[in-house]
């Protein structure tokens, strides 16, 4: 309390002193008959002009320092996907065009401001326009931009019109995490619908069984609500519960009924459930993304609640996951996790990261650990409190290692929707079409 008081007093005294100083300054100027707030002296103009030059040097120096420290090794290394290399190349070419423009124009700006500072005896050049000059700096940027546009669109088209070729993997986003579903032998994801989502069926996959399970779940909850409401009613037909709670329960009650009706009407096609929904039979839900090197993948994204943005920084891949629509992104990983870890640049960088990481751990009193490079999936669209920790490990490996993973993974993770076990490695050649 006392400290706060002292701080307030100090600040107040500081400002009072400042006011007095300014007053003296202005009075002195008045006595000398100067309009010191309207006109700068020659030395002040010169000082500011020189500072412009000093600033420019410091400014350029800061950028060069940043580039030398973070530019060549920002932490993402070489792109680990086929299309990522095109993006990186395009980015480099853009930098080669942009950086000289940036340095030259800024140098001219600060340079001229320094060189032509105000001197009473000088007169500025009356130079209102020069059509030739203006044409030059319209046409030259236009040519440079034409190149950037053409090169950029060629890359964009190459990436975006190459979307439907790979093995299909679904990533389902929710607050705050991801669920991954492999499409299995037939390379087709089983149909899913948000109305089917429940704790036992987090992806809302449709099968005859999940439809029945959902009915049971809905009926159960409907009965629960019914019994809560009917057991809390008095003889006059008034509820003993708070009004707000009754409203909420009744709303949920109605909504469940509507949901069941809509499932019956639009999803539960009784005659052909067995065939229409059978592509989910071999789908596999897992907690990590395992990818095979040089295998093309088509990722399909759905969202449960809000907009998320799956972002694979090392693959240079991202696209929004939007509730109500499916988005997709194709990518082919080209470097395995192991290869990446043994790259000398990456190794050196992660040595450094380990030092920093464990310094922090010591500081906050957490156990030290050895962290290794891993590919990662994160969320890149604001989605709520847990936005900054929506992470999923991605592992790129060889076909053998992938088969081994499928083989070794516990029953829980390789269980398919039909309950049967699938030996994926045997059917791989079929699926990769």
């Amino acid at each position: 309390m006392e400290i706060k008081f002292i701080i307030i007093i100090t600040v107040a005294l500081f400002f009072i002193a400042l006011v007095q100083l300014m007053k003296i300054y202005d009075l002195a100027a008045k006595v000398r008959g100067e309009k010191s707030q309207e006109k700068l002296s020659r030395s002040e103009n010169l000082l500011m002009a020189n500072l412009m030059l000093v600033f420019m040097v410091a400014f350029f120096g800061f950028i060069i320092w940043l580039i030398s420290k973070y530019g060549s090794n920002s932490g993402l290394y070489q792109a680990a996907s086929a299309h990522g290399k095109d993006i990186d190349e395009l980015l480099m070419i853009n930098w080669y065009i942009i950086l000289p423009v940036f340095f030259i124009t800024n140098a001219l700006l600060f340079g001229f401001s320094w060189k032509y500072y105000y001197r009473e005896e000088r007169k500025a050049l009356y130079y209102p326009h020069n059509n030739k000059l203006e044409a030059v700096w319209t046409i030259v940027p236009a040519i440079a931009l034409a190149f950037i546009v053409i090169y950029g669109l060629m890359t964009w088209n190459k990436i975006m019109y190459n979307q439907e070729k790979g093995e299909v993997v679904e990533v389902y986003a929710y607050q705050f995490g991801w669920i991954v579903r492999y499409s299995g032998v037939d390379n087709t994801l089983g149909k899913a619908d948000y109305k089917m989502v429940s704790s036992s069926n987090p992806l809302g996959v449709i099968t005859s069984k999940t439809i029945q399970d959902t009915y049971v779940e809905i009926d159960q909850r409907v009965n629960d609500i019914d019994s809560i409401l009917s057991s809390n009613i008095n003889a006059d037909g008034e509820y003993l519960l708070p009004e707000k709670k009754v409203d909420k329960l009744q709303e949920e009650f109605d909504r469940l009924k509507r949901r069941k009706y809509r499932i019956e009407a639009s999803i539960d096609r009784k005659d052909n459930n067995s065939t229409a929904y059978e592509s989910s039979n071999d789908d596999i839900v897992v907690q990590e993304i395992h990818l095979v090197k040089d295998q093309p993948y088509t990722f399909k994204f759905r969202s449960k609640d809000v907009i998320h943005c799956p972002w694979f920084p090392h693959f240079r891949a991202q696209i929004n996951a939007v509730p109500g629509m499916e988005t997709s992104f194709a990518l082919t990983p080209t470097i395995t996790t192991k290869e990446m870890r043994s790259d000398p640049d990456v190794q050196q960088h992660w040595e450094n990261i380990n030092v920093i990481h464990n310094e922090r751990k010591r500081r906050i009193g957490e156990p030290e650990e050895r962290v290794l490079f891993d590919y990662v999936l994160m969320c890149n669209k604001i989605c709520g409190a847990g936005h900054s920790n929506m992470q999923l490990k991605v592992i790129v490996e060889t076909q053998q290692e992938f088969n081994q993973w499928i083989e070794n993974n516990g029953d829980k993770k390789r269980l398919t929707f039909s309950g049967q076990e699938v030996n994926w490695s045997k059917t791989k050649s079929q699926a990769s079409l």
Partner: protein
Amino acid sequence: MSHDTHHHHKESFITKYIFSQDHKMIARQYLITAIFMGAIGIALSALFRLKLGWPDDKFPILESILGSDAAPEGLLDSNWYLGLVTLHGTIMVFFVLTGGLSGTFSNLLIPLQVGARDMASGLLNMISYWLFFLSSVLMASSLFIETGPAMAGWTVYPPLSVLAEFQPGSGLGMTLWLLSMTVFIASSLLGGINYIVTILNLRTKGMSMTRLPLTIWAFFITAILGVLSFPVLLSAAVLLLMDRGFGTSFYMSDIVTSSGALDATGGSPILYEHLFWFLGHPEVYIILLPALGMTSEIISTCSRKPIFGYRAMIGSMLAIGFLSFIVWGHHMFLTGMNPFLGGVFTFTTLLIAIPSAVKAFNFITTIWRGNVMMTPAMMFCIGAVSTFISGGVTGIILADSALDISQHDTYFVVGHFHIVMGMTAILGMFAGIYHYFPKLFSKMMNMRMGMAHFWVTIVCGYGVFLPMHFLGEGGLPRRYYENTNFPMFDHFLDLNILISIFASVGVLAQVIFFFNFFYSIFRGPRASQNPWNANSLEWTTPVEHVHGNWIGEIPTVYRWPYDYSKPGKENDFVPQNIPLDDNEEEH
């Protein structure tokens, strides 16, 4: 034009200072409101930068400022972090750089520079300010409610912004946000219509469109952009209110919450994004153009040299204004839009670089062989041109849809738009305040403090936003409450501390400005009529404000406002109301 009859009657305190219809008083009201909002906006950024720079430390100051809900034991809550980010963005974009910048300087300068007694409608102008004031109060008040302000980012994308279940700020905080924005849009539309009408109809004799100062051209194009695009945001906001309150599903479809699937079906959040960015992109130029307009005027005046390429400057502003309506899709490359459409938006977006380059080169050529008076206003203008270039060039990368795949929503974007839009506009606004202070308050601000203010601001501004580009190149997403969940970002711990230090110093340094500003209003030395030896008409008005601006006749205009250092003239400036000599060419 004879309005002589009504500038003599005595005014009461209320009609003079509060419900004033005089454009100069309304400009002051706008400016002071915006300065208060700006203080809140930048203070919020300093607070969340504490968390980003020192993720593990406790800052009791956070708890004492924000309360124990927001920062229990000095550790910022993750929902509140997003709330601070959201309000920082909203306040700076709309309340400081749209309402504050256009509101202040369009109001002050349009009648003074075109030679009019007042705005076309003083009443609408007054209503416009008071709506702005109301919306400012509503927005600021959302900081004081228990569940916190809106937390969905300044773009408030649904469905996140629809249900309080997704984040607490989407409850009452979001309602206040939407109400405030609705009122704000109404204010901005009333203002905009007034500006357009005044510029078109109330120009004095001889003030043809090609003799208008570039400030007026900038305000004119800005007002047109606002009038055409803000209604779209209004519709977006109203539909969002309906989704939140009346069970519609414009933006909602296939959503599952913890209480099961919602009924909403058939809507699309992408619709909201289209509506939002149809305003959102022109909004960038609504912010930038007034700043660039004032920069043109001040650079010319303080370089004692005509603005280079006057017509090219007008042409490029018109081109920027037109193009700004057909580029909004570049914010949405990754929403799953048709790749062909993405290509079209890449093309139109990169086109904007051409008129922007013309403007930058024209600014530089204006300084070339000038006689540069290093007033604080001029220095802020040099800074603004620098940030316009530095932030503009990285825009070329973000405009490229293919590159956007690896840059979208990373800190690269944050660095880019803060430099090109945030800094350029705020530096331009400071330049305007220092330059036009004699017209606003009839006093002079202290120049030396202004210089100190400039240097700290530009150094800290670049110090904060340049490093962010490198965070972005390292893949760091924006709006992360903490970056420590991913070991791959640990090597940025130092850089984040550096950014936070620059941010804190930069924010604290604004005290120099606040002090100088308020001290000078009351105690500053009295200004002379034309302290900067400038040409435009506002400097022919009396120092003390009079209702109707000129005592007696409004001056007639004979020339453009940029006759500085004209050969054959004794002075290095020739005001617009001086007739041409015999056989003198106009320019």
